[in-house]
């Protein structure tokens, strides 16, 4: 099983969770997964929207105590 890379973007207003994911993906191999931690509920929508648009895979989203965990697999 591939180890997940955690991108802790809690409390990040700028650049924000999606920008942190975009930067993080550049340092990952194809097939690797990233779990973005975000305190911005907007991440539950905007991360999957971008991931779909660009051609990566949205594995899942769940919320625990005000923190959204959005998991993404790098596809290209």
């Amino acid at each position, binding site marked *: 099983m591939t180890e997940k890379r955690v991108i802790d973007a809690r409390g990040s207003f700028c650049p*924000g969770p999606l*920008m942190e994911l975009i930067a993080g993906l550049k340092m990952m191999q194809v097939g690797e997964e990233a779990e973005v931690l975000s305190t911005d509920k907007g991440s539950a929508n905007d991360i999957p929207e971008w991931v779909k648009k660009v051609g990566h895979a949205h594995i899942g989203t769940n919320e625990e105590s005000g923190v959204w965990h959005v998991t993404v697999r790098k596809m290209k």
Partner: protein
Amino acid sequence: MKILIVGGGMGGTILANNLARRLQGEVKAGKARITMLSASDRHMYQPGLLYVAVGSMAPDELYRDQRSLLEPCINFHVDPVTEFMLDANQVKTQSGRVFDYDVLVIATGSRMAPETIPGLAENAETFYTEETAVKMLKTLREFKGGKVVITVGVPHKCPMAPLEITFMLNDYFKDRGIRDKVQLHYTYPIGRVHSLENVAKWAAPEFERLGITYETFFNMKEVDGATKTLKSEEGSEVKYDLLIAIPAHRGQEVVEKSGLGQNGWIPTNRTSLNMEGRNNVFVLGDTTNIPISKAGSTAHFEAETLGDNIAALVKLGIPVREYDGKVFCFIEAGKDRATYAMFDYNTPPDPKAPSKALHWFKLAYNKLYWTSARGLL
């Protein structure tokens, strides 16, 4: 205690001066020693490059002699680090010297990396170095009209730069009397025109009012110079006559080579500013991997926190406070109006309507910066 600061940019300089004042007695008594290693004998006010690119500041206004900014008791060497040897509490430098430390602060900053996008370095104008800002100014002076595309890489230094250069270009072309011959087209990596939601809510209607078109979810993939086409990771393409890029940035090569962090970003605790797993190593400014803005004000506020904490380590053996994620960024909204965004880990920004007064304050800060670097403001 030997305190070694690597990097003579804004963060390193503020911290060194701050510590020199707080530890004056200890330094005099030989109980503390502050050393700075830098790659240059000059200190550049980097935000000024934006103004150089549109001809409103001259490059020589951006520099001061680094030694002149430092308290006399700081041991300053122009001798960049070539290797960090953290297990031995040592660094090796270009001259071949080895410096020991008890406390190390890494503040080596970041650099633009246009080479990571095929075709970008050859075909785009940028303004993150003196050389490229001057080149951009010369190109702008010769530009007669057409489509100007502004494109943004991730991560980049100065999160306000994409908006600022766009608003400033709008006024630049207006002043030259050719605004009606120029189409300004702005692209941005996420689903709104700025990462800060409240800033985006202000900037998008401003773009519409000024006739600036924009496209969101646009991450540059490659530039085809032959057909003057910019392609995105999302699959779209845009033609340009003049391409202006805020390229993605990376940390310094020596950081990556020494195995301290991928792409030169060092894993750093967001409140203590310790390098993860290293109690006697701190990281400051752009070099951290903390998910906040890579901006001078971030380095400034982090340096103030570290100044308090490292001085307290010397005097009391413990740190005294946490960094709260504070950032303050001016936003130039054209050639004569500005606003600002201030935020921390828990408080989002709430930018006000741009005003001339704030623009004048920003111009004043362009000079006051030297007081900041000396650790006085």
